[in-house]
């Protein structure tokens, strides 16, 4: 409580406007934010985390961002990793979230998106993050998603530094990061290494068995570019984590080892044309021992299970922008080839055969979009995309995405955005092809959806007030059927509606307050918080930066019938800029230990535990 009082008192006392050159430098930094170049208002409800925000937030991992996103709750999976769950659905439903690093689309066989593997991803090399809800499934190319998270790496010409950062936390975890980014005439490079050991409190399951989700992770990112010519980037990560509750009821021991690597080449061709080619390799190795035995897909029980699977993904994209009078056209063609492999499946030391479903998925995509300026105040965007899917197992099919966006400047203070999109969600390999504990369903159909969203924004001087609302209807939703032991297309209604209100008030360039509230409505069951709020206070005072954050999520009854209390996650941080070369950072996460929790086999756990983090940053 004393810490809270200290931060509130300090933060509220320091809203004095900075003067002179320092203030001009802050304004210049803000006017030069890279997000001004990359943000696409037409592509959805946008939330931006600038590098200045990420620094003040002390956002070390993607989870620090995920937990603040409206309409979502950061929960846990049974395997110890985090799950970004759409309100008010359960963590077992697909949330159709896509992550991009620059123009590279993170892809995963295990979850369809990179959320499970990338929650602990370090953000040291990231300049800014754009989150698009009701996102543009056409201009962002790749596989469709209802929310798109775009991570943009730092610009080496603005870094020109080698930065070493070391953190230690109150649970015994630690993190080391080093980044080097330089610019030489028309060439530049960026390299980042991030190594972390993550410790959590041990939990007890319903049988009083101790559960651990400790993990170790290493990641490397590197890029090399020639200005206005080409951009090569690649990344690799390896994470080994205790299995937590794992597959079944009474886990003895086990771990999950995930490796992920990719390489992408982007070439800028004449006439605003871009060519991108990438390759991705992913491997997931799961080892689990269970006293009672894990019920497998063939109804046998396994006391010792070892599964190693993975995938290769190749992607090739050609896209062109063309401006003609008041039209801004985008045309593109893309091919994505995914191959799943099962290296081994051992139960009690014996290799099991498996009636595997489709191992390949080839997607050939064509897309076009036209943003037309009706006049200076109104713009309309129409887009269409055709995706041909061939899994070499069932009949090939073509799915279509259609999108309409309308932007209007209604007056000096008022602006409006509206989106209508018809899209789909394609089943993932773990639903159609392989899972050790369920029978896959290779005949799953795509789930079709339609969304309609709108927001109106009022801006005057230092105040910005936004109100947004929307409805979503889906057909043939993909759900797990306990009776049949497999995924099926549900004929039940899973429509929902939502609204949010967002207020941002800027006291000065470096000092601002953000407050947000959302609510989601669904006719039948709600397995996650349907109401949430966020308050963020960014403050700078002399050589100190302060950050205060409160994330609220309402109570809910989980899938396993357990009542979960409402969550209030209060996080605060302070940074002391000791010198040009040294920053000292202190952060408290989930300070009151009241963050929203997930029920897993008798244990109730928050995604991010109460933790104090001390960080030293040295700039060479």
């Amino acid at each position, binding site marked *: 409580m004393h810490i809270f009082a200290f931060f509130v008192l300090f933060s509220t006392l320091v809203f004095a406007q900075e003067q*002179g*050159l320092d203030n*001009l*430098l802050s*304004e*210049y*930094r*803000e*006017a*030069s*934010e890279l997000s*001004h170049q990359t*943000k696409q*208002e037409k592509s959805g409800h946008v939330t931006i985390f600038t*590098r200045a925000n990420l620094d003040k937030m002390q956002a070390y991992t993607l989870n620090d961002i995920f937990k603040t996103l409206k309409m979502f709750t950061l929960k846990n999976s049974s395997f110890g990793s985090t799950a970004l769950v759409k309100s008010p659905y359960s963590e077992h439903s697909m949330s159709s979230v896509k992550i991009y690093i620059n123009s590279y689309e993170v892809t995963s066989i295990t979850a369809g998106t990179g959320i499970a593997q990338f929650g602990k991803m370090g953000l040291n090399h990231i*300049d800014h993050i754009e989150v698009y809800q009701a996102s543009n499934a056409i201009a962002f190319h790749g596989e469709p998603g209802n929310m798109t998270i775009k991570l943009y790496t*730092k610009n080496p*010409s*603005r*870094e*020109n*530094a080698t*930065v070493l950062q070391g953190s230690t936390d109150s649970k015994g975890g630690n993190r080391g990061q080093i980044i080097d980014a330089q610019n030489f005439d028309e060439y530049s490079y960026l390299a980042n290494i991030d190594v972390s050991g993550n410790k959590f409190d041990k939990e007890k399951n319903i049988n009083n068995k101790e559960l651990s989700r400790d993990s170790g992770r290493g990641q490397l990112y590197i890029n090399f570019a020639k200005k206005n010519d080409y951009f090569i980037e690649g990344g690799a990560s390896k994470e080994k984590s205790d299995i937590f509750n794992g597959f079944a009821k009474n886990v003895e021991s086990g771990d999950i080892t995930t490796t992920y690597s990719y390489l992408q080449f982007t070439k800028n061709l004449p006439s605003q044309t871009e060519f991108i080619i990438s390759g991705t390799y992913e491997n997931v190795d799961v080892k689990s021992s269970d006293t009672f035995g894990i019920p497998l897909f063939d109804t046998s029980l396994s006391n010792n299970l070892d599964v190693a699977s993975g995938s290769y993904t190749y992607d090739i994209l050609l896209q062109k922008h063309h*401006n003609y009078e*008041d*039209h*801004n056209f985008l045309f593109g063609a893309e091919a994505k080839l995914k191959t799943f492999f099962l290296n081994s499946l051992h139960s009690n030391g014996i290799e099991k055969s498996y009636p595997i479903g489709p191992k390949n998925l080839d997607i050939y995509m064509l897309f076009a979009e036209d*943003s037309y*300026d009706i*006049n*200076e*105040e109104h*713009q309309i965007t129409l887009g269409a995309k055709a995706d041909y899917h061939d899994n070499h197992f069932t009949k090939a099919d073509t799915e279509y995405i259609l999108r309409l966006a309308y*932007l209007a*400047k209604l007056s000096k203070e008022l*602006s409006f955005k509206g989106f209508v999109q018809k899209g789909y969600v394609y089943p993932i390999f773990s639903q159609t092809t392989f899972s050790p504990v369920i029978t896959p369903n290779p005949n799953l159909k795509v789930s079709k959806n339609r969304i309609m969203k709108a927001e109106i924004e009022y*801006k005057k001087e230092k105040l*910005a007030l936004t109100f947004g609302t929307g409805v979503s209807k889906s057909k043939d939703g993909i759900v797990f059927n306990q009776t049949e032991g497999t995924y099926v297309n549900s004929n039940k209604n899973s429509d929902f509606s939502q609204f949010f209100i967002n207020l*941002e008030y*800027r006291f000065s*360039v470096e000092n601002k307050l953000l407050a947000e509230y959302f609510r989601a409505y669904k006719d039948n069951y709600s397995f996650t918080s349907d109401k949430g709020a966020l308050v963020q206070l960014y403050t700078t005072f002399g050589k100190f930066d302060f950050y205060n954050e409160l994330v609220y999520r309402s109570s809910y009854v989980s899938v396993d019938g357990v009542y979960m209390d409402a969550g209030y996650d209060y996080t605060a941080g302070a940074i002391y800029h000791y010198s040009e070369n040294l920053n000292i950072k202190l952060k408290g996460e989930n300070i009151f230990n009241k963050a929203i929790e997930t029920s897993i086999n008798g244990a109730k756990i928050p995604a991010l535990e109460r933790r104090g983090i001390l960080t030293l940053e040295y*700039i060479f």
Partner: protein
Amino acid sequence: MKKFFLLLLLTFSLFASDSKDVLRAQIIEKIISNISINEVITVWSDNKELIAEFRKSSNIITTDDCGKANIVVIENAKNIENKDCKNKPVFVLNYNLLKDVPESFGAFFWKKGRPNIVLIKPRTLSHGITIAKELEAYVEEKIW
């Protein structure tokens, strides 16, 4: 298109109403206004956007002839090679130029994602440049 996107940028980019070129010019103008060299300061730059912004201001005198300038602002050292102004006090727009251009006395540059200002004290003294109190926070003894 152009007008619409300009309008959107102005509308949606809160507090980014001043373009970065204008702000950059204001910052450098403020630095130049706070140094003195015992004569009226006349500025030449190899950066056309910067000179264009300076010319909108009544506080700074510019010239197209670098030989007539007594403060030179550069982003590329090659642009003053073999010119009459190569021995004049130079303010650079890239930190590395402080090492490459011995006549440089200060820099406005990006480092770790933030814009920075530095004035190198021994070099300002060698050029007879006096620095006002407002700039003292940016004075350093040597190049890193």
